């Protein structure tokens, strides 16, 4: 057994420590991430917002293990990430479903890879399709269902392997406004029900404030975290978006982003 010093100190579910990422550009190297540190506590839903080019998607890809950091480390439960794995689910903006597999077949993919028995796979798939409200569409091909349903399938597929962290890269960016708000409600209910730790990238401040407990605001050139907000609202539902407190909170974050944009614009 391991000896734990100060065992009262909790370990973050996901932690980025002194993360640097450089890309070779046309005029020297571009610093996509410079000394970025974030923490996501167990059961939290945290959002990353920022203008394009601030490195938020890069951060997510490094956390997923799809890209290597130039320097620094991402820890999951205190262990460094060395490559992609089923302990970190990733949901893309483009749903990225397997077009030849049915909705159920898509959700089953990760479980097949894990080597589960057919019966167990069928049961788990049924369970997650139920939670996602997809039971009716189990036998449908992705091209036969709407964008919202496709994204639900992608989320179900990522959750079915029961990852420690769910990473979401602008998951609702390609959806129309009505579907988008329905999906936000849906994500909140999934988060309540399963308590999965989630880290989500979005460019919509309103979406970030509505969904998350904490928000990291990032800025480009070089990509870095410039602020962290604790979101105070308890009762999350769409009626919240009309409340004055909500609107003023959104404006506060928005103003910060706008300031940042004008700084970059005058450089």
């Amino acid at each position, binding site marked *: 057994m391991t000896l734990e010093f100060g065992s009262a100190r909790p370990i973050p579910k996901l932690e980025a420590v002194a993360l640097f990422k450089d890309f070779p550009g046309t005029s020297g190297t571009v610093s996509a991430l410079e000394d970025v540190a974030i923490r996501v506590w167990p059961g939290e839903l945290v959002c990353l917002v920022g203008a394009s080019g601030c490195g938020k998607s890069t951060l997510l890809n490094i956390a*997923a*293990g*799809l890209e290597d950091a130039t320097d620094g480390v991402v820890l999951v439960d205190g262990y460094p990430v060395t*490559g*992609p*794995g*089923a302990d*970190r*689910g*990733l949901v*893309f903006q*483009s749903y*990225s479903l*397997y*077009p*030849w597999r049915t909705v159920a077949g898509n959700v089953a*993919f*990760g479980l*097949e*890879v*894990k080597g589960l028995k057919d019966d167990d796979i069928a049961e788990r798939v049924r369970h997650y399709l139920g939670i996602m409200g997809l039971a009716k569409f189990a036998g449908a*091909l992705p*091209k036969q269902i709407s964008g919202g349903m496709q994204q639900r399938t*992608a989320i179900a*597929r*990522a959750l079915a*392997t029961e990852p420690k962290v769910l*990473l979401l890269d602008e998951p609702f960016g390609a959806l129309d406004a009505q579907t988008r708000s329905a999906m936000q409600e849906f994500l909140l209910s999934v988060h309540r029900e399963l308590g999965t730790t989630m880290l989500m990238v979005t460019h919509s401040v309103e979406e970030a404030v509505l969904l998350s407990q904490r928000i990291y605001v990032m800025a480009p050139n070089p990509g870095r975290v410039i602020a962290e907000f604790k979101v105070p609202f308890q009762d999350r539902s769409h009626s919240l978006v009309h409340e004055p407190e909500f609107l003023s909170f959104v404006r506060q974050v928005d103003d910060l982003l706008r300031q940042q944009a004008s700084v970059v614009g005058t450089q």
Partner: protein
Amino acid sequence: MEVSAPSATDSLPPPGYTPVRRRRSGLKLREELPQRVRWPLVISSIVLPLVAWTMLSASGLVNPLYLPTPAATFAAGVKLAQGGLLLSDMTATITRVAIGFGIMAVISIPLGLAMGSLPGIRALFEPMIGLIRYMPAPAFIPLFIIWLGLGEAAKIALLVIGTVFFNTLMSADVAALVPKTLINASYTLGANRRVVMRKVILPHSLPGLLDAMRVNLAATWNLVVVAELVAAQSGLGYRIVRAQRFLQTDDIFAVLIVIGLIGLTTDMAFRLLRNVAAPWARP
């Protein structure tokens, strides 16, 4: 703000409005063609050339020695079939195509998939294949005859050399079309490279591979006749050369039509196979 349902008068067009003239169906780009327009066109495609052929051959303008009538061609075909020559020629030719095409597929599909998925393999093979594929396959015939003699091996080699490079590059392009996010999504679901190859790249490529094979099967049919024209004792191409020696143009026409029909059948079989094997990719 008051919201009311639009009344009937609201939706009348303003004065001076003229509707936009619609283009005739059949001439709209990429538009679905109605069945009542489609079928007359499909039937005309076959009937019109037949009528033209019949009229030209019956008019007496062309010596029937050069252009036999459709009836004479049909009779020649029946005679070849009854004598058993047609069947044995077809068997010989189809066997060559099957062996050549089979060898070609076994080499080109794995190589193409590897090239399309692994940039290192692509960089290693693509320049040489890109060069060789522009060398006309029939130009290799003398070389194959020197190396392999006049038998079957030389003919099969021609079929393989004439199609294997095209099918490899086409298969590579098909494999390279698998979206990167689909591969990345699979990694985050716990898959390793081998699993991604088997469970993602292969099924995603299947319809494209079948399309490439269909195209190159047509090329194999072209080449097998070339091979049989040069040196053979059997086969549909050989039958044409023999018919030429005796000025039997009706036999040549009959064999050409048989070759066309076999080609069309295999083409349709591949389309059917694609739709059955990959219904998700049906247009």
